[in-house]
């Protein structure tokens, strides 16, 4: 599909924002600046952005424990996200949720989720609303999450109710330390999804354009009332499962190789510059702007107001 110059720049900016956000977190966590468990999305940017560039605020997505990329791609405020990860009371979730629970209903982002497989059923419900709005609902899941009973139930129910739900499986080949080759018993998760009675395709998760085009097709298909669909995106995660993971399950040289050969940002840059759709200088300018944004986000997050003990009992209920 032909994208406008603006659209290309926007997509690149989104991917770059995710990348720098995550790289910076990696450094900050190593310095002990950030509490809790953090799962970095770096490497998978083309997936989140290739999906979300099609979506508006009343299209819904739900995410996973590895949620930063989805949040940024769907339009969550980067400053407020960073503050949340730092545990500030000005964070997007007032410091209550942290990395694994960033959400913003205003942009149709129904939350990162610490429970593997919990998102898909909720996306089915958002699909009920989407059906009445003429929009779509997207469940991001991993290759590990695709084995959880809740994910299967959600797929069957979405088919039964003919809902406009798209199950996006980011296959980064690992669930924590276990290979997809071990944990997914099926020939492929795509074949398995197809057998649930939905359109199921694969795309190249390190190529923004592959994801973007495939998603256009699926979104149109779902909006036309054909029921749900699924897509498997072959991709790579550049860091450990969580920050602190020594990654002994990786093959020799694996990390270097994927960073060299399977980097979605490099792939994008090469494609658009070789096709003369954008110039390198333009992309460099975006890089600088994004880098600046992330610097500001971290600086602000470090200065931001801290929560107080009285905040603990706020927002358990609307009224009680």
């Amino acid at each position, binding site marked *: 599909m032909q994208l406008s110059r603006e659209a290309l720049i926007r997509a690149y900016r989104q991917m770059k924002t995710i990348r720098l956000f995550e790289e910076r977190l990696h450094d900050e966590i190593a310095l002990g600046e950030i509490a809790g468990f953090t799962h970095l999305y770096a490497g998978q940017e083309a997936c989140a952005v290739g999906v979300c560039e099609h979506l508006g605020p009343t299209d819904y997505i739900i995410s996973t424990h590895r949620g930063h990329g989805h949040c940024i791609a769907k339009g969550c405020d980067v400053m407020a996200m960073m503050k949340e990860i730092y545990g500030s009371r000005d964070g997007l979730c007032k410091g209550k949720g942290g990395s694994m629970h960033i*959400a913003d*209903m205003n942009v149709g982002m129904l939350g990162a989720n610490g429970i593997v497989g*919990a998102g*898909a*059923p909720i996306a*089915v419900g958002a699909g*009920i609303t989407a059906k009445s709005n003429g929009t779509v609902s997207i469940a991001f899941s991993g290759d590990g999450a695709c084995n959880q009973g809740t994910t299967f139930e959600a797929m069957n*129910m979405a088919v039964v109710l003919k809902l406009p739900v798209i199950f996006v499986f980011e296959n980064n080949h690992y669930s924590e330390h276990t290979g997809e080759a071990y944990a997914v018993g099926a020939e492929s998760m795509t074949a398995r999804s197809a057998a649930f009675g939905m359109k199921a395709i694969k795309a190249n998760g390190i190529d923004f354009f592959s994801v973007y085009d495939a998603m256009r097709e699926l979104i149109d298909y779902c909006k036309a009332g054909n029921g749900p669909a699924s897509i498997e995106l072959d991709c790579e995660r550049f860091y450990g499962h969580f920050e602190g993971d020594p990654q002994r399950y990786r093959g020799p040289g694996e990390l270097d190789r994927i960073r060299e050969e399977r980097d979605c940002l490099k792939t994008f840059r090469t494609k658009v510059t070789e096709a003369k759709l954008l110039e390198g200088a333009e992309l460099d300018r975006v890089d600088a702007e994004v880098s600046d944004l992330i610097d500001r986000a971290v600086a602000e997050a470090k200065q931001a107001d801290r929560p107080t003990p009285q905040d603990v009992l706020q*927002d358990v209920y609307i009224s009680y």
Partner: protein
Amino acid sequence: MAIKMIRDVIRDTIDEEMARDDSLIMLGEDIVGGNGAPGGPEAIGGIWGTSGGLWAKYGADRVIDTPISESAIIGAAAGAALTGKRAIAEIMFADFIGVCMDQIWNQVAKFRYMFGGKTTCPLVIRMPYGAGFNAAPQHSQVIHQFVTAMPGLKVVMPSTPGDAKGLLTQAIRDDDPVIFLEHKALYGVKGEVPDGDYVIPFGHARQVTQGDDVTILATGMMVGFAEKAAAELAQDGIGCDILDLRTTSPLDEEAILDSVERTGRLLIVDEAPPRCSFATDLSALVAQKAFASLKAPIDMVTAPHSPVPFARELESAYLPSPDKIVASAVKLMSYRRG
């Protein structure tokens, strides 16, 4: 005032609220019935008879039959409720909370808190519960001990038709998620039901009988047992102050403490086994906040620490009963500090 059975009150209240609010949907197994079958849809309207006619009136987009997939039912109801709908999910037996607890406990109950107070999830999870049908260990349980322990949920246990209407109306209109527990053995109970819009706010106990000797706290089917016991005790001159708590979360602490301060004796009746239960919860409240008023130990009439057995004799022995309540009250009255 009409005279109705609780099962009909539930149905009619849902009907009224669906008519009132287009955004309200409901989901569950066989709540329509007969989908995909030669005699259906709507061959049944819910195995408890609590949704008859609703599919015909509101259509398949609002009255949604699901596969047997409780996690997906709660998840779907929750996802709809997060995105602008109101939802009622029916879990056919409360015992099935085991296959969907994550969606209730880690998702629905926590959304608002972990997302920083910016979301609403107006969702009612209806769960028929309780023993009395010889339905054996996996179809006879109470679960209020679990859900009351979960911050973020409100928990309702009506015991009369009128309360069922007022509390269910409140539950559906509430912006927080509500667990609405319907005792299976009470579905056929008849009683007066106010006409028109009728809302009972949560956190207000109902004074069932007044008395100065023993405070009796109960919910659901236990309320009737307590009433029977109180009638008997009255003949022996023992006055019981029975409170039907109606909601276990929020809890009407004030009414409880007021009563115990008056009577000095507390007897709690609970259909759950005894450990980490709502009975212990109430006991602890009073032992902490009305200690000085207590003239006797706090007694609890509960199920034993066992699953619910099948056979008639066993289930009767398992359940609290008016006799056991009488015995406990008599014991409390005769207590003298050593």
